[in-house]
Every structure is written in C-alpha cells, then in structure tokens.
C-alpha cells in the first residue's frame, strides 16, 4: 500500500514479510460452477431484455416516422437475433466457468 504515509523501516519490512507469507499460504481463489438457477435466470434475462429493447426501439421509430407496424416487426426480429447471440455468448462464458471449476476441483483432489 504505497499511498500510505511514510512508515518506519521495520514496519515496512514486517508488511513485506506478511505479504510474502500470505502469498505462500493463501489458497488460490476458489472457482465455483454457476448453479442451475443462475444459468436459467441469466439466459432468460439475456434473451428477454434484447427482445424487449429491440421491440421498444422499433415502436419508438414507428411513432417517429408513422410507419407502424413495419419497424416494430423488423426490430423485434433484430432484437430476437441479438438475444440469441447474447445467449450464445453467455453459454460460452458459463461453459468456460464450469470447466475452470471442474479443473480446480480435480487439482484439489490430486493434491
């Protein structure tokens, strides 16, 4: 913590020793696999929010240009596409996190 006021030399040495010991002793941060409820909520939120926002943008543009319902339909579909892409991105992230958690557990067992 370099932003602190100047410390006596021995105090700093003590701090360094504590930090070194902490690095040695502390286990690496535990990685947990996402729970099924978390995964379900995440997918739902990603898909739903994109569709809602897409349709809302279409609705607003329709109101602006007086072209109801053409743009609402177009942006609903684009929103759905965005939602599906976001779910794919999310599923990649979840797969990665699950794999990391499994690997961490494996390493724990072997130790």
């Amino acid at each position: 913590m370099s932003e602190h006021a100047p410390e006596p030399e021995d105090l700093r040495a003590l701090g360094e020793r504590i930090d070194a010991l902490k690095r040695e002793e502390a286990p690496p941060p535990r990685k947990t696999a996402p729970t099924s409820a978390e995964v379900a909520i995440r997918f739902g939120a990603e898909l739903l929010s994109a569709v809602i926002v897409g349709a809302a943008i279409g609705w607003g543009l329709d109101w602006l240009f007086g072209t109801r319902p053409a743009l609402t339909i177009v942006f609903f579909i684009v929103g759905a596409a965005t939602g599906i892409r976001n779910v794919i991105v999310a599923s990649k992230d979840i797969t990665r996190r699950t794999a990391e958690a499994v690997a961490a557990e494996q390493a724990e067992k072997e130790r």
Partner: protein
Amino acid sequence: MAINPMEQFEVKPVSWAPHPLFHIGHYPIYFTNQALWMLVVFVSLSLFLILAVNKNRVVPTRTQSLAELSYEFVGGMIDMTSGPAGFRFFPLIFTIFMFILFCNGFGLLPIAFTVTSQIAITFFLTAVVILTAIVTGFVRHGAGFLKLFVIKAPVIIMVPMVLLEFISFCARPLSLSMRLFANMLAGHTMLKVMAGFVIGLGTAGGVYTVLAAAPEALIVALTALEFLVAFLQAYVFAILSCIYLSEALHLHDNH
C-alpha cells in the same frame, strides 16, 4: 392453510406509519417496508465502516480487517477489469457492491424485506452505472465512443452487426437489473414455498407430520445456497459494472 409465497415482496407502508409522510403533487409518499430496510442497510453499513476504521490501527482489529478486506476485494476487482485508470470509479463500485451485499444479506433475516427483489431498485442501480459509463465514454473519446459498436468485418456483415451491438448495448441495463432481481425473487419464493409445505404437512397430522421434516431439511440447504447467491449476485453486479465502465474507459483495446 393457504400461504402466498409472493406476499413477501409486497411494498406497503409500515404498520406504525400508515399515513403518507407528505405529498408530491397528488402522489402520497409513504414510509414503506422498502424504505425501512434501505434505511437499516444504510445505517448499519455506515456504522460498520465508520466504526471499523475510526481507530485506524496498524494491526487491525477484527472489524477493521473486515472493512479492509472488502476494500481490497473491490480494489482487486477494479484492477483486474480496468487497471489503475478504473480507480476513479472505486467509490461508485464500492458503494454499489456493499449496498447490494448488505441488502441481500439483510433480506435473509426471517422478518426482513429484500430490497433487491424489487426491479425498481435494481434498475435504478444499473441506470446509474450505465449512465456513468456513457458519460465517461463520450467525455473521454468524444464521438469515438461510438466505435464501440463497430466490428472489423466486411461491410455486408458489419452493418447488421452494428445494429445488433447497439441493441445489445441498450439491453444491458435491463438484463443486468433483471439478473439481480430475478435471482433474489426466485430464491426467496422457493424458500417460502418450502415453508408452506412444512406448515401444510406439519398440521396435517399422523404420518404427514413426520414427512414435514423433508421440506424442512430442504429449507436449511436452500438457505445455505441463498447466502452464496447473496454474495455471488453482489459480486456479479459489481464486476459487470466494472467491465462496462472499463469499456467506456478503454474502448476495445484492453480486451
């Protein structure tokens, strides 16, 4: 016996202050259970942090080391996502993280109201983060901030992708607030449904009374899980806020 598991999420005036405090226009402003528990969170959080560091010892007491731990935890989170430049947002991220953590935690008390199970609250928190990100982005990069939506690709793919990215960006506040709110809502509803089973079976008599132990055991397990969810959702919310702010700071070049 009918138990409504959603009743716990009703926002209503507290019983000892049934009259509106004041009016804004025609709208009466009540002191609701929501306001009460936010006040509880605010007071206890302030007391915890102020009392923890007011002595400012070199060798920390237990409370002080708890406060230091949360400081370093949030600091590490910011450092990991956006580097040293992100530390200007430390107060914002720390406040949001601690507020959500305490709201989730207090929500697990038996009589408490879970503030974060209201989408009004979570959406407001997200709005603060996203608006900060947008303002930061435009102040730092000017119109160049719009490059966030551009992906290097042939024009025929790029145009629809820009649209996609734009909708995706606009959907962020909604999806982020929905995740926190839905997680808290789902967990607390599940606990109350199980509690309804216990009461229903327990009062049925005979062999059913013994069977009531099964949902009871499930409640214990779910409560333990809820503690994990309470922490994890605060963490997820804070780290996603960090990522969005970091994007506004560095555009794409950092990841």
